[in-house]
């Protein structure tokens, strides 16, 4: 982690809100790329050191999990921003914490291939946000895994304009 924020360095609220989109040490170490915002879309390039079962040769399930977790967090960030804009308010976003995350594997990832994850935020009511995501190589209608998760939002406020 060379150019990212250090643990001791305080971050502004704006930076904090965009953390999921800007990248974390983990997403940087794994080479995750942000591709789009609605739905939130991220890509994990194929890397030999991130292969799971060598007999199968695709990216490990844990890498798919991390990618979807990141894409889901990003989807919430964008949904919060959209809501603030729709209400003519300025968003002050605190953090978010994953409560639970379920991942269903439909099929093994294709060996040697990058994986793309998409996620959409299903609700922002109260302090809990529900998100779902899916992952695929090229065709979003041919997913290799689907995820559903609940995130706790902390200190997110929409102050009056």
């Amino acid at each position: 982690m060379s150019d990212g924020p250090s643990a001791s360095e305080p971050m502004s609220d704006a930076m904090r809100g965009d953390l999921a989109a800007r990248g974390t040490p983990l997403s940087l170490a794994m080479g995750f790329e942000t591709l789009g915002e609605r739905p939130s879309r991220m890509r994990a390039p194929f890397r030999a050191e991130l292969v799971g079962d060598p007999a199968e040769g695709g990216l490990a399930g844990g890498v798919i999990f991390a990618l979807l977790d990141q894409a889901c967090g990003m989807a919430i960030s964008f949904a919060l921003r959209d809501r603030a804009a729709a209400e003519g308010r300025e968003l002050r976003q605190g953090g978010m914490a994953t409560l639970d995350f379920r991942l269903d594997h439909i099929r093994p990832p294709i060996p040697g291939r990058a994986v793309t994850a998409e996620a959409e935020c299903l609700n922002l009511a109260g302090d809990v946000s529900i998100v779902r995501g899916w992952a695929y190589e090229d065709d979003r209608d041919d997913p290799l895994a689907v995820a559903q998760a609940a995130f706790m939002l902390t200190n997110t406020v929409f102050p009056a304009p």
Partner: protein
Amino acid sequence: MSETALSSALLDAWPYARWLDLRVEPSPSGPVIVMPFADRLIGNPVLPALHGGMVASFLELAALARLDLEGRRARTIDITVDYLRPARPVTTYADARIVKLGRRAANLAVEAWQEDRANPVAALRGHFMIVG
């Protein structure tokens, strides 16, 4: 379980398990899987806390390694991870329990903790297809 069985072939053979530097250690209650801290595991630099995806990866690999110690090769069908408290930037341990080992599938429960085993940081429940 003998000491030699504590060298998990799976953790040695899977590139991703090596990337996470996972190993098996003996404990009074049986083998535990260990994930040493590394900077790249951080998901939230503000707290700082380990990335939820890394905690999940660790729990899943602990389940697969547990089955491996039983001589079963498995493929993950589904996992659910409950996050109980932020995982701090220190060594993390996991204990994987085989709830049911069937002919075609296994159900496992895994808990991860850091300094205090009585205060787990995350828990996994999952189904794994037995493939060998």
